[in-house]
């Protein structure tokens, strides 16, 4: 069987309901009037309630699983869309490589190196240098493709803590500062391009388990999620808490196992709920807006998704199993 990375653009259709004309007798007219009254005053208010904060349609832009040339993706665990070069980079962890795709999501090249074993989280700065979380080594790897340099990225000046530094997922801001999750010490370490410590961000909440994923918006506001507690934190650029919301209590509209998050250009926060198999969208105050996708393995559905990323054009990138899907939200 042949398989290749397909670029697809299928717009989901909204079907209009057909009306059937029929002779209207006086009795039917009365019935029709009564039904209309009933519909307007009894059914519609409930229908409106039920659908407010409902689902948002998406169209699938691309599905990437691999092809004969690049081989199959194996446990991809992070991706990054470079807005400057318009390229998608996928950390294909199981194959120990970084794979790049063009703006049309066609395979371009792969990068492997002895200094990189299990690439996981990936970001790229304005100068085109990569910073990659290597889960195999438990460290950050710096890559300069032009100078052909692949080396460890040591941090300096980080205040010592109770536990050793074990890096988690990363984010990068407009000033090229790196935001690295310090898993064991339950904090976020912010460093310059040189690796020099800038500051740390942490939470004193009693039920805080540590950060699982992090993003930064253009204003420098930091968004992080605690998957075990099911809480989303928003910090200002100084690390002060602006907002927090969410829980994993067994109640309606709560998270089941939120593993990743992303922020769009309008400031909406997209939470990837792995066990619910869908994306939940909130505003900054934590008010639920709508849900995207549903659990399943078909195109457009999500099967235990682990990662989400949103680019400047609003395209949503997801990782579920060994598949990357790119969605575009339907307007309206």
């Amino acid at each position, binding site marked *: 069987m042949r398989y290749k990375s397909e670029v697809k653009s299928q717009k989901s259709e909204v079907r209009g309901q057909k009306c059937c004309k029929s002779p209207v007798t006086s009795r039917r007219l009365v019935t029709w009037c009564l039904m209309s009254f009933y519909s307007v005053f009894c059914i519609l208010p409930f229908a409106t309630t039920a659908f407010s904060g409902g689902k948002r349609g998406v169209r699938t832009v691309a599905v990437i699983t691999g092809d004969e040339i690049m081989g199959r993706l194996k446990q991809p*665990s992070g991706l990054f869309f470079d807005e400057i070069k318009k390229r998608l980079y996928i950390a294909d*962890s199981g194959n120990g490589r970084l794979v790049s795709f063009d703006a049309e999501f066609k395979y371009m090249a792969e990068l492997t190196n002895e200094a990189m074993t299990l690439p996981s989280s990936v970001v790229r700065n304005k100068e085109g240098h990569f910073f990659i979380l290597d889960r*195999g080594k*438990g460290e950050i790897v710096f890559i300069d493709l032009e100078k052909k340099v692949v080396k460890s990225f040591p941090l300096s000046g980080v205040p010592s803590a109770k536990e050793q530094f074990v890096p988690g997922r990363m984010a990068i801001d407009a000033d090229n500062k790196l935001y690295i999750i310090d898993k064991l010490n339950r904090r976020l370490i912010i460093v310059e391009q040189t690796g020099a410590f800038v500051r740390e961000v942490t939470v004193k909440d009693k039920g805080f*388990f540590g950060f699982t994923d992090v993003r930064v918006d253009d204003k420098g506001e930091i968004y992080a999620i605690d998957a075990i507690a099911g809480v989303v934190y928003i910090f200002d650029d100084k690390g002060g808490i602006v907002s927090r919301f969410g829980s994993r209590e067994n109640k309606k509209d709560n998270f089941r196992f939120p593993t990743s998050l992303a922020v769009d250009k309008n400031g909406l926060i997209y939470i990837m709920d792995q066990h619910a198999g869908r994306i939940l969208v909130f505003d900054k105050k934590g008010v639920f807006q709508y849900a995207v996708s549903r659990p399943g*393995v078909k195109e457009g559905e999500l099967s*235990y998704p682990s990662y989400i990323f949103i680019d400047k054009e609003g395209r949503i990138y997801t990782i579920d*199993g*060994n598949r990357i899907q790119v969605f575009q939200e339907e307007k309206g």
Partner: protein
Amino acid sequence: MKSSGHIIWLTIGLVIFLGLQPGIIYAKAVKDTSGICLECHSKKAEELTKKAIVHQPVKDGKCTWCHNPHASKHAGLLSYTGSDLCYNCHDQKKGFMGKVVHKPVEEGNCLSCHDAHSSDIKGLLKKAGGEGGFSCHPKESIINKKNVHPEIKNGRCIVCHNPHSSDREGLLIKDKKSLCAGCHPGTGEVFAKAHLGYKVSGTDCLGCHSPHSSDKKGMMKASLHKPFEDNKCSSCHPVGSASVIKSGISLCTECHEAVVAGFNKINSHFFIGGGADNFCNNCHNPHASDEKYLLKDKEARVCYECHNDTKEYVAKSNHKHPKLGICSDCHTSHGSNSQFFLTKGDDTCAMENCHSTQGKFTHPIGEKIIDPRSRTPMTCTTCHNPMGSPEKAVLRFEKDRELCEQCHQM
């Protein structure tokens, strides 16, 4: 004429409807009916005189508090079923609600332990002391060791457990740190000597001691951490202090260095959870355990502490994988390069002693068999959900048609 007919039928309907309503309404009108009832139920009358303890309504002859003498939709002409009947008098809020509720209470099955009419045992219990508990909680799994806690030996489970509800795990009557101190105050020379001079009062005794039975002296748990077993407390603690000589996981990795490599995987459990001071203590007990790998509790309980939504999903599923309680049979607990921390990736199901023949005579699976829906290779979990399903054989869809139609259009 027609309208009067309607009124008659409506009246009859109303009488039948009211007649079938819970007898408690009817009972308010009738005081003592025992004379009438026991006239026919003579066997019950004889039984009542023989038993030492009689349920108060029975004693007062108020049979209709529970039974409807005419008609009922419930067996025994009862006004209500299950605990709904009992809660008419016994306030549910007083002792029958809590974070942890005993299963029979939760299911409203009061009569699994109590006799509604009379008993020779206090509390109208059907069986005395521990015998009642052992009818559901097998004796051989609780007191199967050489040394048995004397209270259990005497069948007094309620010294530590509340049989109805509690806000504490294990239906304990007090929190773990003060439970034992009620009988074992933790003072005296013998106590201090047994604990090598370390101040253990106010700590969780159940961390080291087995509360029910043990083969070890001092009711110690079955598996002991080597330094603990050798009384080398100073390997981890300063002499006479409960504090530790090194912070964080470095305390453990000094001896267990090789374990760290197990965490450096694509999917890693390297995180702080559960609020333990030491990351390792989220899952392990550094002193003693009755479980393998010095786990702090039964394996599934340890995992469900964080994966509580999985626990709920499993509980709701009609069909479950038989090994669901032993998570480590399929999942690697520290780290894995496979999705879901699977021990052997896509070959996990086909492991030795499990489904080794699967895939050989069933639907083909493997790297070359592509699921047209996801465009990824088919595995066992393409069709089965081992964590539970409403369908038999933990299938993801109904087996006769829906499952196949996912890929094979008919």
